C-alpha cells in the first residue's frame, strides 16, 4: 500500500487530494469526497482515466513553465504540490519577492518599455515582442521595481525566456 498527499490548484481553486493505491486502483479522497479511480498513461501527456465507470481522456500541456490539464474541450490551469515539500511553498506568497517576466511565445523583442530600476505598476507594459508580424505587449505581473533586464531590443526569444525581473 502506498498513499500520496497533494495540494492541487485548479483554476485558482484548491483541492486537497489523497491518492491511495490499492490493487492497482486508486482510492481517491478529494475535498472530503471519495472516488474510485483507475488510470493508464496511454502515451506521454495523455491519461485515460476512469472515475467510477465514467471514462475521461485527460491531456497534460506545459506552456512557458505553466501546467494545464484538458478535460474534453476545457482547459484548466493546474498546480500540484506535495505539502511536505518545501519547494512548492514559495508559491503561497504570490506577490512577495522577485518575479520573472517571461515571453509567452517565441519572437523578437522589438521594444523595451522600461529601464533597470524603473517603478512599474501591476499590468504595466515592460516589453513588446513581435511574432508572426504582430506585436504583443508583455506586462508586469506585479507592482514593483525592475531589477534586471535580460534581453535587449532586437534579440530573439523563446517561449518561457525571462525578459526581466520585477521585485
Amino acid at each position, binding site marked *: 500500500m502506498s498513499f500520496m498527499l497533494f495540494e492541487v490548484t485548479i483554476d485558482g481553486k484548491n483541492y486537497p*487530494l489523497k491518492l491511495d493505491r490499492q490493487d492497482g486502483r486508486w482510492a481517491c479522497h478529494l475535498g472530503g469526497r471519495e472516488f474510485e479511480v483507475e488510470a493508464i498513461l496511454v502515451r506521454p501527456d495523455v*491519461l485515460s482515466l476512469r472515475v467510477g465507470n465514467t471514462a475521461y481522456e485527460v491531456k497534460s*500541456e506545459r*506552456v512557458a*513553465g505553466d*501546467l494545464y490539464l484538458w478535460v474534453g474541450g476545457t482547459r*484548466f490551469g493546474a498546480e500540484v504540490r*506535495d505539502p511536505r515539500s518545501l519547494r512548492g511553498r514559495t508559491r503561497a506568497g504570490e506577490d512577495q519577492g522577485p518575479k520573472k517576466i517571461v515571453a509567452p*511565445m517565441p519572437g523578437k523583442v522589438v521594444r523595451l518599455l522600461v529601464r533597470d530600476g524603473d517603478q512599474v505598476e501591476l499590468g504595466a507594459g515592460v516589453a513588446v515582442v513581435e*511574432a508572426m508580424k504582430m506585436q504583443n505587449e508583455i506586462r508586469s505581473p506585479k507592482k514593483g521595481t525592475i531589477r534586471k533586464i535580460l534581453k535587449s531590443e532586437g534579440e530573439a526569444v523563446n517561449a518561457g525566456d525571462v525578459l526581466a525581473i520585477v521585485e
Partner: protein
Amino acid sequence: MFKKILIANRGEIAVRVLRACQEMGIAAAMVYSDVDRGALHVRKADEAYPLGAAAASESYLNIPKILDVARRSGADAIHPGYGFLSENAKFAQACRDAGVKFIGPTAAAMDAMGSKTRARQAMEKAGVPFVPGTSRGVESFQEAEQVAARIGYPVMLKAAAGGGGKGMRLVHAPAQLKSSLEAARSEAQSAFDDDEVYIEKAIINPRHIEMQVLADEHGNTVYLGERECSLQRRHQKVLEEAPSPIVDAEMRRRMGEVAVRVARATDYTNAGTVEFLVDQQKNLYFLEMNTRLQVEHPVTELVTGLDLVHLQISIAAGEKLPFTQEDVRIRGHAIECRIYAEDPDNNYFPSPGEITLLLEPSGPGIRQDSGMYEGWNVPLDYDPLLAKLIGYGTDREQAISRLRRALSEYFVGGIKTNLSLFRRILGDADFLSAKLDTGFLDRMLQRTEDKSVDSRPAEVAAIAAGVFAALGAAVAGAGNGGGSSGLPADKLPSNWKSASRREALR
C-alpha cells in the same frame, strides 16, 4: 505531362500540391527557408532546395532564387500554391521567359485583374454586375458629391490601388463626404503612392460568396459551384462552406455564368475564383477575381468529387477539360475550419512554438490538410495557418455534426490554437440556422460565451493532476515553482515511475 514540378510554397498547401504530384506520378521539388528545414513539406519532398534566410523576401518571395532552383532541379513546371508569388504577374512572366510552365493564369490575365479600376472597365463591357459607383477615380469633390447623391448613402470610398482596408472610408451622410474623401486620398497616397479614390454604394452586412472557375487552354471555361465565405475576422476568412445555404440552383447558374464571363473577359486560364458580395435581397455584386488556387478549395472538391490540383496540373500541361458544364454536379455539403496558431484568450494573437502533443481526428466525412506534426516548432516568420479541418456530410446538419465530433477528438498541445472558436461557431444558433454575413463573427465574439458551471470537469482535472504527478509523468521537470512530483509516502523502487509509464495500473 510534366516530369517534375517545383512547389514554390510551404506549409499545408505545399503538402497538398505534393500529394497531387505523387498521385500523378510526377516528381516534386520543394524549396525551404532556414527556419523550415524541419517543416512537413521538406520531410515529404522528393527533392528539397534551401533558399536562405527566413524573411520571405530572401526565400519564398525571391524570384531569382526560385527560378535558379527550377533550373538546377530540372523542373518543367512551377506550382505557386496560394499567397507568396501565386498572384505575382512578374513571376508568371519570368517563369515563361525561363521556359518553365507556371501552373496558373498568364501574366496578362493577372495584370488585367490586378488593378481594380482597369478590371472593372473590362468587366463592365462583359455585363458583369458591380456595386453601383464609379469605375474610375473621382476627379473632384463636386464629382464625388454628385456620384454619392446618385447612388445613395451610405457610400464607401476606396483606394484604386488599395487593399487591406487602407484608403477606405465608410460615409453615412453628405456632411462627412469632404473630410472622408481627403482622408482616403492622403491615406492612399502614403500607402500606395497613388491617391486615386473611387466611390461605391456601401453594402451593409453583405454575404461573401465566391464562385470557382476552371478554364483550359483550348477555350473551355466551367464553373464548379460557390463557396460561402462570410465568416471572417479582420478580413481574414475563418470558416467556409459549399454549397452556400442561400444559393439555389437558379442563383448558382446565374453566379456561375457571370463568373465564366469574368474569366473569358481576360482570356483566363487554369483555376480562379470570382468573389461576390451578396446583399440581403440576394443581389450579386462582383468584388474581385483571385487568380490562384484558394485556401478553401477542398470544400469544392468534396461536393463536386473533383481534384482541383490534379486539374490545374493537367490544364497547365495543355490537356483539355475532361468534362463539360453539364457534367458538374453538387452533392452533399462540406465545411472547412482554418486551424490557426493563435490565442483565443489574447485577441487571437499569433502563437508560434513547439507542438508538444498532437491528436488528430479521423473517421467518416473528415479530411485534414495539414502542415504540422508533433514535435514541430511552428516558426514565427509566416502566416499562422497550421491545418484545415474539413467535414463532409449528406447535408449541412451532418457536416456540422461530423465537424463537432472531429473537434472533440482534435488536440494541439504546446501552442495556442483557435480550435475552441470552431466549437463555439458550430454550436451557435445563428450559424445553425445559416444566418450568416460578414459581421457574424465580430458579433458572436462580442457576446460573452456561456461557460458551463458544472464542477465535475474541474474535479476530474484535480484527480488527473494527482495521478499524473503520482506517475511522474506530467509534473516532473516542472518549471520554477510549478510543483514537485508527489513522492509516495512509503519508499518505492527507483524504477517505479518509469515502469508505471508503460504499464497499465490495474
